[in-house]
């Protein structure tokens, strides 16, 4: 028996980064907004205070702040010939849960995608000719130039610390010479670098590359953002990603937006409330609200004039499928859109082992690093290479949390005295040069509903069919040797290459950069939402997040997720509200 609640102007499904962004802008515009979050309330003093935040076992290995796989996970297979099985515990990626979502336990590496990333198909075809038939890469439908003011604002909300390389067309020494033109500097200077970054930068420069500081959401100094929120200097504690920040030093929804929202009478938040489906009018042309269930099993209908899906990409895709909104993607025919173009990230690295010098990796921060962009996107000539896209190559010092981070050379056994000694000898003396490669869409990689496995409410789990592609393999084979070359120039005694080979393995942690499934575009036949994030099928339904990416670029997604959210909410306020209806006519 579903109980009906009083209507609100806007209901948000999920309350992480994008939920907070939409809520702040829409309440400021005078709308009555309710956010529904399936996880609990979370905040710095109550959930990750400095007295207990630095607990590797609790937060990483026992999944203290991640989605409960027991409630809802996904099934996985490498290809359609296999039977998908549940990811019974998290491995390769770590979906967030609760207020702040994955924005609580992210690292804070906050990039802007390149201008060419937003027009990946047209740009690459113009330059290199037609793409392979099974590469389903598409343009976003929105350009870097249109997003620039929103990138700028998101960086100021977060207090991003970095060195600009291109402001108003003027190249600035020490920044990224390849970046799209910026309207302003970063709000804060870069973080301080350690020995490993100094060695990486020197080696990269000697090779003619252009190192610059990773744009960081870990504060290099005290900062007050445009909403009046105060952030404190980062203490380089080494417990950033997979953990919450006890210092108010990492930009998160909690530290940048939520306290302001909580003062507003036209904002409401309901936690421990899981949305089951988006409801529609009988003709299927409008969303009427959402149905959700609380932890007692009580089911509620929340009517709303506008519904915005702000959950994690995997969850947004599943909600559309469960709500029967949009045509599910069929990899056999290439028809349909929901679940299409699931992409990830192609990672590899080279570990540097020093003999006499100490890298002291425990002095670290989530976004502490130096990076080169010379091999990202189309910053290098791809003629004759047989692949498109690229990746950044970076030397970050994020942590030396010992359960997770104890690299040993390649000839060392997995256990026993030799392993133990190698762990001790190298624990304080290693660093890593990582390749963070883009992931181009392929017609076989997709998301749909699993035919067998159900969640705690008896609904089908999402099924992921994913493997690395020929483009991925060529990309990683081209970039990994560059990382190796930089690593060899850093003055260490030994370099170990961690190549990306074989099929995608869902077990070892790689990144929580799951993209696609609810992609944006210029045409309802090939995308789920239009350039504003508005559903092609239901004009009062919007979707946000990295699920909008038609393919994944060689950067961490959050900067672009933030910019797209501000772009989308701007369109709702200035275009949709004055004249509700489709914002793009196909």
């Amino acid at each position, binding site marked *: 028996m579903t109980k009906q609640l009083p209507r609100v102007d806007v209901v948000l499904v999920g309350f992480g980064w994008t939920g907070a962004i939409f809520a702040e802008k829409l309440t400021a515009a005078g709308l009555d907004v309710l956010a529904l979050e399936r996880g609990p309330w979370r905040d710095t003093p109550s959930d990750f205070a400095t007295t207990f935040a*630095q*607990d590797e076992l609790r937060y990483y290995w026992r999944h203290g702040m991640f989605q409960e796989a027991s409630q809802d996970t996904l099934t996985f297979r490498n290809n359609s010939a296999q039977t998908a099985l*549940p990811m019974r515990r998290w491995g390769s990626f770590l979906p967030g849960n609760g207020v702040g979502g994955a924005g609580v336990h992210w690292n804070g590496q906050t990039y802007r995608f390149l201008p060419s990333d937003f027009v990946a198909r047209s740009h690459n075809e113009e330059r290199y000719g037609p793409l392979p038939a099974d590469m389903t890469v598409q343009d976003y439908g929105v350009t870097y130039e249109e997003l620039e003011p929103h990138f700028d604002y998101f960086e100021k909300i977060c207090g991003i610390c970095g060195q600009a390389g291109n402001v108003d067309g003027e190249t600035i020494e020490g920044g990224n010479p390849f970046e799209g033109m910026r309207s302003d500097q970063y709000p804060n200077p870069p973080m301080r670098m350690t020995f490993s970054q100094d060695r990486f930068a020197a080696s990269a420069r000697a090779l003619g590359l252009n190192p610059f500081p990773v744009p960081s959401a870990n504060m290099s100094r005290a900062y007050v953002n445009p909403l009046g929120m105060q952030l404190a200097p980062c203490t380089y504690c080494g417990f950033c990603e997979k953990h919450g920040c006890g210092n108010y030093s990492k930009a998160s929804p909690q530290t940048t937006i939520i306290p302001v929202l909580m003062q*507003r009478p036209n904002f*409401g938040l309901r936690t421990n409330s899981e949305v089951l489906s988006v409801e529609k009018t009988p003709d299927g042309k409008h969303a009427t609200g959402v149905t959700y269930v609380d932890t007692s099993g009580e089911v509620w209908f929340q009517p709303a004039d506008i519904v915005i899906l702000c959950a994690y990409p995997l969850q947004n895709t599943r909600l559309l499928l469960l709500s029967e909104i949009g045509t599910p993607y069929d990899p056999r025919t290439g028809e349909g859109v929901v679940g299409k173009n699931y992409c990830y990230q192609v990672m590899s690295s080279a570990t540097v082992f020093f003999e006499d010098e100490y890298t002291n990796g425990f002095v670290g921060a989530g976004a502490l690093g130096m990076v080169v962009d010379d091999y990202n996107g189309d910053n290098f000539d791809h003629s004759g290479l047989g692949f498109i896209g690229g990746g950044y190559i970076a030397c970050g010092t994020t942590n030396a949390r010992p359960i997770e981070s104890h690299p040993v050379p390649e000839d060392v056994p997995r256990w026993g*005295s030799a392993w133990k000694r190698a762990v*001790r000898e190298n624990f304080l003396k290693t660093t890593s040069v990582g390749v963070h490669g883009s992931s181009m869409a392929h017609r076989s990689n997709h998301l749909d509903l699993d035919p*067998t496995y159900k969640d705690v409410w008896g609904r089908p789990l999402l099924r992921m069919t994913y493997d690395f592609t020929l483009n991925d393999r060529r990309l990683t084979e081209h970039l990994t040797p560059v990382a190796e070359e930089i690593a060899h120039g850093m003055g260490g005694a030994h370099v170990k290459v961690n190549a990306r080979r074989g099929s995608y393995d869902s077990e070892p942690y790689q990144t929580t950069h799951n993209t696609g499934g609810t992609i944006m575009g210029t045409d309802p036949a090939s995308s789920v939402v239009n350039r504003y994030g508005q559903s092609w099928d239901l004009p009062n339904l919007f979707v946000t997040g990295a699920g909008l990416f038609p393919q994944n670029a060689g950067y961490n997604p959050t900067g672009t997720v933030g910019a797209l959210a501000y772009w989308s909410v701007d369109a709702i306020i200035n275009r949709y509200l004055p004249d509700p209806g489709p914002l793009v006519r196909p």
Partner: protein
Amino acid sequence: MAGTALAASRVLASDYGRGAGMPWSPMSGEVPYYGTGSERFFSHEERRAVAAICARLIPSDDDGPGASEADVVTFIDRQMAGFYGRAQHWYMQGPFAEGTSTQGYQSEHPPAMLYRLALAELDEHCRSQMGGPFAELTEEDQDAVLTGLDEEEIAFERVSAKTFFDLILENTVEGFFADPIYGGNRDMIGWRYVGFPGTRYDYRDFVGHNGAAIPLEPVSLQGRPGWSQP
């Protein structure tokens, strides 16, 4: 959420906002989940076998202490007695299938039961092939058995020997390096051995170390010896 999936103190659905400000109160922190206190899961024989396995995975040798000094077996025992041993946060609905090498943990048994079944078969195997339970074999024989599990030369009937080996190796490393509040890494012995300063929360003075060693005594979430002395 710490500890159990839904603590009774949590309301079923909580309403926030509407101008009420932050729902904040002092001293409301979710303090760490200390394993399961002093609860035990293993029988005496099981505990002896686990301790013996851990002692070979991370041996005590002339280079320094190992799993025995760190009391890793107590860590694993507490973990098995708690939510982790029950796989309370994992998805454990069937049907179960073996899966490919890229599909992760697919045992139908939660960790505690996997240990129980595997340890029984391990001792059975050791008794029939080598004349005694695992814990009573020579170190050389113990290493040979563990290598057999690791390299899938020894198989069990009811559970996957390889899955068990991978899990106990993972848990042993956890117990050697997790904060001492969970029962292993006793006296921060694992941290001291590798030089990890533990749960200090401010390294700003050391960012410019420029490759030099940073000699710091480790600190646990419980503090460290001598901390409370004037």
